[in-house]
């Protein structure tokens, strides 16, 4: 082959090699995906506790409470507020060999449904409705977390009164709107005002100015009857009976929790500290205390006794044109006794 004919063929071979090499080189050029841009617009309204997170929290709480038993320190890891006070009192009563009376607390913490608020700030809370336990009544479990680094703790577990049912709220995935303590938009009254009025109704009975705002309920009837009987009995023997009831202090100026229901009303959970003082006649004989009171007082006889009960109620507050307030669930029990 002459050099003049070979030169173009070598050039062609080089060109062909170059053309064939390009695809081979490209094979090694697959690229890493970049970190996607994060949208600057505000997040859509959503519950801050995701449904799966709520399930995990409740599971952890159930396990911790079961393992804690009556150990007050271990209980404090996952229980707080009225629930802790009631459980500690029950443990003391059991420790003294007596049977704690029913308090309307949940006897089963297995969740049936949950109401997850759309709230960003702490303290945070959410509600869980439990399966009916041995008392055949579902309970409303209030869980609170005081700060990002603290766990949710059970604050109260009032059980539904016979014949009541909870109003419908938004689905857990959508979250429910929180109603502020003093927010009364489209409500009969603000949650704080309603809670205070019910405290007056429990204390003063039908004589309370707001008695007509509340439907009759089994707990109110029981409290009113008990107070009347004690007052009458002590008066007949020359003694006295007095009582006071105040809203339980909350955290961060939030003594109660309230959420908007689908009908435009609100579901309010409020706690009270109910203090009664029974004093026998001057110079009278010592009276026998019942086993539960004696267990908490640390003595079996007394002339006077100051009893502290913690109460938690769930109120269904109707919208402005919706009628009267209904009491749906109650938890109440003795937590302290001071006998003299």
């Amino acid at each position, binding site marked *: 082959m002459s050099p003049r004919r070979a030169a*173009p*063929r070598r050039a*062609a071979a080089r*060109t*062909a090699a170059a*053309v*064939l090499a*390009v*695809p*081979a080189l*490209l*094979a090694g*050029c*697959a*690229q*890493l*995906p*970049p*970190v*996607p*841009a*994060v*949208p600057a617009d505000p*997040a*859509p309204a*959503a*519950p*801050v506790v*995701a*449904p*799966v*997170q709520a399930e*995990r*929290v409740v599971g*952890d709480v159930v396990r911790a409470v079961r393992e804690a038993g009556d150990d007050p320190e271990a209980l404090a890891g996952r229980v707080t507020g009225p629930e802790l006070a009631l459980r500690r009192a029950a443990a003391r009563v059991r420790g003294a060999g007596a049977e704690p009376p029913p308090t309307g607390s949940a006897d089963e913490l297995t969740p049936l449904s949950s109401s997850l608020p759309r709230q*960003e700030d*702490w303290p945070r809370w959410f509600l869980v409705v439990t399966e009916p336990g041995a008392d055949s009544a579902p309970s409303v479990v209030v869980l609170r*977390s005081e700060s*990002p*680094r*603290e*766990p*949710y703790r059970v604050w109260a577990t009032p059980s539904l009164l016979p014949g009541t049912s909870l109003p419908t709220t938004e689905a*857990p*995935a*959508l979250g429910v709107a929180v109603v502020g303590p003093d927010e009364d938009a489209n409500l009969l009254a603000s949650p704080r005002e309603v809670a205070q009025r019910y405290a007056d109704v429990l204390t003063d009975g039908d004589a309370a100015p707001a008695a007509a705002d509340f439907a009759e309920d089994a707990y109110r009837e029981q409290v009113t009857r008990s107070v009347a009987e004690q007052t009458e009995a002590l008066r007949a023997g020359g003694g006295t009976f007095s009582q006071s009831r105040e809203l339980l202090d909350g955290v961060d100026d939030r003594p109660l929790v309230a959420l908007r229901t689908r009908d435009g009303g609100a579901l309010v959970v409020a706690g009270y500290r109910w203090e009664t003082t029974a004093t026998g006649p001057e110079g009278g004989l010592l009276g026998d205390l019942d086993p539960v009171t004696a267990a908490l007082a640390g003595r079996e006889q007394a002339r006077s006794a100051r009893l502290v009960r913690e109460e938690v109620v769930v109120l269904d507050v109707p919208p402005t044109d919706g009628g009267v307030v209904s009491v749906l669930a109650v938890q109440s029990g003795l937590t302290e006794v001071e006998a003299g």
Partner: protein
Amino acid sequence: MRRVLAWLLLAAGAAAAVTGALLLTVLAPPQRLTAATAPAGPTGTTAPATVTDRGVLDLTGSPVEVRATGPGDVFLGVARAADAEAWLDGAARTRVTGVAGDLDDARLTTADEPGAGSGDAAPDPRAADVWALAADGEGSAELVWDPATTGAPDADRTGAWVLLATGTAGGAGDGTAALDSLRLTWSLSGEDARHPAGTPLLAAGAAVLALGAVGVLVEERRVRRTRRARGARRAAGAGA
């Protein structure tokens, strides 16, 4: 020369089409992307807590597999970005900012952020409930994150969730300590799972191949006609 050019087009087109097909099949990029931090130290995780920047968990498809190793009890938790920030409360952290390298050898890029406010270390993260998903284990921990399983309406929102990982300094509840390693594995999906040159090469190769084939056919016919004409002229010259 035109004949050579036609054959070159044919060969190049065939090569490009075959390469394109290979890139879309046997030479396709891996369907998973794995990236890890450098070993603990100046280029790895140094702060007690390691947290991903918003968007890192959304780099490509779900689910994301996470594995971390470190001292003591290793904790992994996925939380809303704002909740994780609230939990950190100014604590020092190593931020995972993205990935670098290539698909077969990717590494997590990190940046250290000194503590401010509450101090360097954060408390035991297992005591908190801000985590939508969490896992822990002695020396190592693993979890698989798929935002769809949270049930939240904004689960798929880009940048909604971040990962926080810590070791523990001296035992459970004894504060946090820097990790030895953190590895994230994403499932590649969509464009990320295809070689960017595959489809263009296949299409362009097929077009060049067709062009070359036409050129070769035309040139071969022309050459045959030329040869027949030469043969006829030679035969006519010999007869004369």
